[in-house]
């Protein structure tokens, strides 16, 4: 097994070693309603421009949790605290969205947008932004965006048949604009994309932040999946399996490459066909 483990490491490194220069998802003009373009842009900038704290409800896989969240404008991390939890449950760090900003026009090739007046959420006025996938390779979303800041006040994720998979909704929220005198945030790092042939339409791959040696990150800008490589357990024949918890799918595929068993796991908010295509596209170079 030691030998095959070495081969496996070789496989992973070969798969991720060659990278292309950074490519930014170019912004292009399109026929989208300017209000939609503004809404998408404001939503992406909101974490940089506003501090906020509040309590939201998360419903997923039949479970409900009330969670306090706080975030300071421009910070990379915020904090989460489960309100109703065991004594030992401690606050967790939470990442703010980061990475290359994708224009509404780019996203419009993958999702059909619809914007309308939204309900009051946490006492705040909102607009509803619907993102309906143009194919079966991503989930659908309905987002209630704060009128004033663009922050997501409520999000719902749907499968292709309209089944609600997961919901997050603020019950209370305090939003304050970024203090102009505060320290400017560092430059946003652009992701370097990997040249991986055969990814589903619109998806791009990069090394996974914080886990560059063992994982890839695949995203279309909204849908996100992490691909992790491991040695295939000795007692497991090649095969595949998947489970879904709320909006999150976990798909594992075991195969044998040049005598080495490799287990590829795709975990993310993607439909099964997309997970399979991603697993298929992440090819490996036989170990040397």
């Amino acid at each position: 097994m030691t030998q095959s483990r070495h081969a496996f490491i070789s496989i992973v490194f070969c798969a991720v070693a060659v990278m292309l220069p950074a490519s930014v998802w170019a912004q292009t003009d399109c026929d989208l309603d300017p209000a939609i373009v503004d809404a998408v842009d404001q939503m992406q900038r909101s974490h940089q421009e506003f501090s906020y704290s509040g309590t939201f409800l998360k419903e997923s896989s039949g479970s409900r949790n009330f969670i306090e969240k706080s975030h300071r404008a421009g910070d990379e991390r915020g904090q989460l605290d489960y309100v109703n939890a065991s004594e030992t449950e401690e606050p967790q760090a939470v990442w703010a969205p980061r990475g290359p900003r994708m224009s509404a026009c780019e996203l419009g090739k993958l999702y059909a947008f619809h914007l309308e007046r939204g309900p009051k959420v946490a006492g705040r006025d909102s607009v509803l932004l619907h993102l309906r996938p143009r194919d079966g390779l991503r989930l659908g979303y309905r987002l209630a965006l704060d009128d004033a800041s663009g922050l997501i006040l409520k999000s719902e994720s749907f499968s292709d048949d309209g089944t609600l998979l997961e919901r997050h909704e603020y019950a209370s929220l305090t939003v304050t604009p970024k203090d102009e005198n505060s320290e400017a945030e560092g430059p946003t790092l652009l992701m370097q994309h990997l040249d991986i042939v055969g990814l589903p339409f619109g998806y791009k791959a990069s090394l996974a932040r914080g886990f560059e040696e063992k994982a890839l990150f695949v995203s279309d800008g909204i849908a996100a999946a992490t691909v992790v490589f491991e040695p295939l357990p000795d007692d497991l024949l090649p095969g595949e399996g998947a489970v879904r918890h709320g909006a999150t799918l976990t798909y594992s595929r075991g195969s044998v490459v040049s005598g080495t068993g490799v287990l590829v796991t795709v975990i993310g908010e993607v439909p099964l066909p997309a997970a399979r295509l991603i697993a298929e596209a992440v090819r490996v170079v036989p170990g040397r």
Partner: protein
Amino acid sequence: MTTYDDNTTSGSASSADHESLSVLMDGEANDLDIARALRGAAESDELRAYWRRQHVVRDLMAGQSGTAISVDVSEAVRTAIASEKRRYANPIISMAVAASVTVAVVLGGQQALLFNDNPINPVTAPGAIVQVPGTGAVQASFAESPVLQPRPVTARSSVPPVDPYSNRVSYNRLADERFESLLKVHNTTASAASITPMVSRSIDPKDSQ
């Protein structure tokens, strides 16, 4: 939690198959296109090669370097599995091995099963691609169709009865374990997405290293 089964089918390459793969790659596939592509690619090396070539051509036309860093391991995987299959004369073990061949090349499908409480019964054919009737590609247009109406949040469902002769059950269980162990990793990496519609991605980076 939802687990799933799948089936496989076979077919042969045709111009319609090529066309279906092209529209799938362009993100314009409808249900029929996806079903045809899956069926056609099930037994066609040519069609799988066509799929790869089309991606390379598209990337080149988009101005991206065409330096492919990867090789297609599907043939190697199939060969490896085929040799294992010969080792196992036991028909029960062979059945499991035959099912495992489906991992060689998979081009999609199954979404209907994954989110369906009453999945279609699977049919398995060795060496083939997974394909299921009713695979749902969504052609979305708010101008033409009503806004999605949510149903109640689905409850975590139980794992189906264990079939001792199928490694699908083992893999479903494995995937469930990976969900528990990799969710924090995913939440960390997924924060790099342009938009994170999840509102929160709870993660303590220290725990995940």
